[in-house]
């Protein structure tokens, strides 16, 4: 448990625009150790999504170094980063991103296809993961037959099926109502207690409060990095109430209901 899962050293990211490079991330340094549960927070436009894309090896930094599980991502080729996404990282998206024409079992098994794992083992592991998130009996259904919260559980099962060291969740509760959100966060917390490193993006304080550590971005820089304190939790100790943190960003309100994409 000594080496960091994620180590970011003076990372910069700028997008090329007609008016010249537009900086999005400025000198970000961050280390995340195995077993941590980190919430990355910040308003819209603060650079947290770009940061998440870089963490997920979907995007590359303009400058700086990013070590994922000890390997320097910048030095890896496309196939090697695809393998990292496949085996080391599990993605959970805001819009669930299940493939609509595939059964839940096939959706969950999909990463295993790209690992070259045989049919029988794919089925068995997909079923095991669906059972773990409590949806084993729906294995043969299509995503459109189940609710948003259930779809997100399936997406988590898919993220877990290749036994990754790291779960990256990009606003996983953004399309869910608060009750379902908290159920999903309970799932993440259980996973974290099993030893999986979880990094999630959110702008909701009550969601972030499930994490053990909170990192706050503003204008492309980390402005706050602290453990979750007891006052982040709501006074009653329950987690079904309104956000306690004072940062509901404008224009990016959380959807109240599941909206299938």
């Amino acid at each position, binding site marked *: 448990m000594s080496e960091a899962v994620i180590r970011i050293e003076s990372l910069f990211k700028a997008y090329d625009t007609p008016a010249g490079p537009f900086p999005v991330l400025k000198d970000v340094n961050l280390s995340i150790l195995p077993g941590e549960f980190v919430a990355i927070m910040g308003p819209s436009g603060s650079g947290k999504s770009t940061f998440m894309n870089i963490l997920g090896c979907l995007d590359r930094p303009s400058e700086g170094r990013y070590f994922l599980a000890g390997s320097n991502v910048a030095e890896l080729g496309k*196939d090697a980063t695809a*393998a990292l*996404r*496949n085996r080391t990282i599990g993605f959970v998206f805001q819009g669930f991103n299940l493939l609509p024409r595939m059964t839940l079992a096939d959706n969950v098994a999909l990463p295993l296809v790209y690992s070259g794992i045989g049919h029988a083992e794919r089925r068995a592991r997909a079923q095991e993961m669906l059972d773990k998130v409590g949806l084993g009996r729906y294995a043969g259904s299509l995503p459109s037959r189940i609710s948003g919260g259930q779809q997100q559980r399936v997406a988590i099962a898919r993220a877990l099926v290749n036994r990754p060291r790291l779960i990256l969740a990009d606003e996983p509760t953004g399309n869910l109502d608060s009750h379902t959100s908290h159920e999903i966060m309970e799932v993440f917390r259980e996973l974290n207690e099993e030893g999986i490193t979880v990094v999630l993006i959110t702008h909701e304080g009550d969601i972030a409060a499930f994490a053990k550590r909170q990192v706050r971005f503003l204008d492309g820089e980390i402005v706050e990095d602290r453990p979750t304190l007891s006052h982040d939790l709501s006074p009653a100790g329950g987690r079904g109430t309104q956000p306690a943190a004072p940062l509901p960003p404008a224009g990016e309100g959380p959807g109240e209901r599941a909206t299938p994409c």
Partner: protein
Amino acid sequence: MLGAMLHEAWRAMGANRLRTLLTMLGMVIGVGAVVLMMAIGQGAQYAVAQTISSMGSNIFVVLSGFTSTGGVRSGSGNAPTLNVSDANAIAELDGVDTVAPVHWGSVQMVYGPNNWNAWVQGTTPAYLDARSWPIADGASFTDSDVRAATRVALIGRTVAQNLFGDENPVGKTFRIGQAPFTVLGVLAPKGQNLEGRDQDDLVVMPLTTAQRKVFGTPFQGSVRQILVKASSAEAMPAVEKSIEALLRQRHRLRDSADNDFTLRNLTAVADTAAETTRVMSLLLGAIASVSLLVGGIGIMNIMLVSVTERTREIGIRMAIGARERDILAQFLLEAIIISVIGCAIGLILGVGGALLVNQLAKMTVVVSGSSVLTAFAVAAGVGIFFGFYPARKAARLDPIEALRYQ
């Protein structure tokens, strides 16, 4: 991996059944047209090749000249300008394999209640050699029959059927006028010649018999044509020149005089016919290939639509670990499956169409294994060629953009 990819390609195609079927239809029509046209073209080539080989190879025909009586000119072969000694002299030339003088005409034959009009070739036994014409039943006449002008004949299959019906003609006797002729043998069938005339509708008899006892001739020994078989195709140009020189010399023609005979190179005619059908079948194939091309473009078009529609899916797949080549293979496989299934259906329809043409139009069609293999190879090639660009477009998508795509 491949199993899973096939399964996914199948599912993706099933999701848009009508579209997949219409895309396939382009390939079906293309491959069907190519197979049908190739079958017809190869059939024509085969028929011509059959006819050419039935003519005998490396053959010249020397026809006698025409007569002109009061301004009315007869056709070639009517003037008595060639005779048997011309034929014997030609036989001495270098490069000449076989020579057969021929005197011909049409006669009415009678056998019992049946009568039939057929072409009579009076010639020597060498005629059958020159034309590589085997005897199906019975035996040929001999040189002694030619010397003795015996009343014997070989008959073609058509004559046998019309004169003798179901009877075996060998040994039977038919009449020409009042003269009886014995059938020595029946010639093997040869079918039509290049002009479409039935080559089996003929009677072959000794030259002398035809000259003296059937047609009569004002000049002893004159013949209407001489069939010359050269020893090889390479020898033909030299043989042609030496025959012409020899005959001009023998007929004492001045340098300014025209030939009083006509020399025809049947192989050249055959080559022309073969070349014509070859060009025709190429043309048919080329026209049909255009529809295959259009079918291929249809595949590319639909694959491009499919890639755009599934941009988000591609993004998801990339995010969970698909490599570029996985995405490429997925879309390529889909294009190949569409084109190969379309090809299989087109093949069945094309072969069925060819058989139908054979039945209805009585045309020779040839569906060769090589044309079937070519069709499959072309279909797979079309799938790869027209599927590659859309598949590469999919594989090169930026996963972040693709995930954001609505």
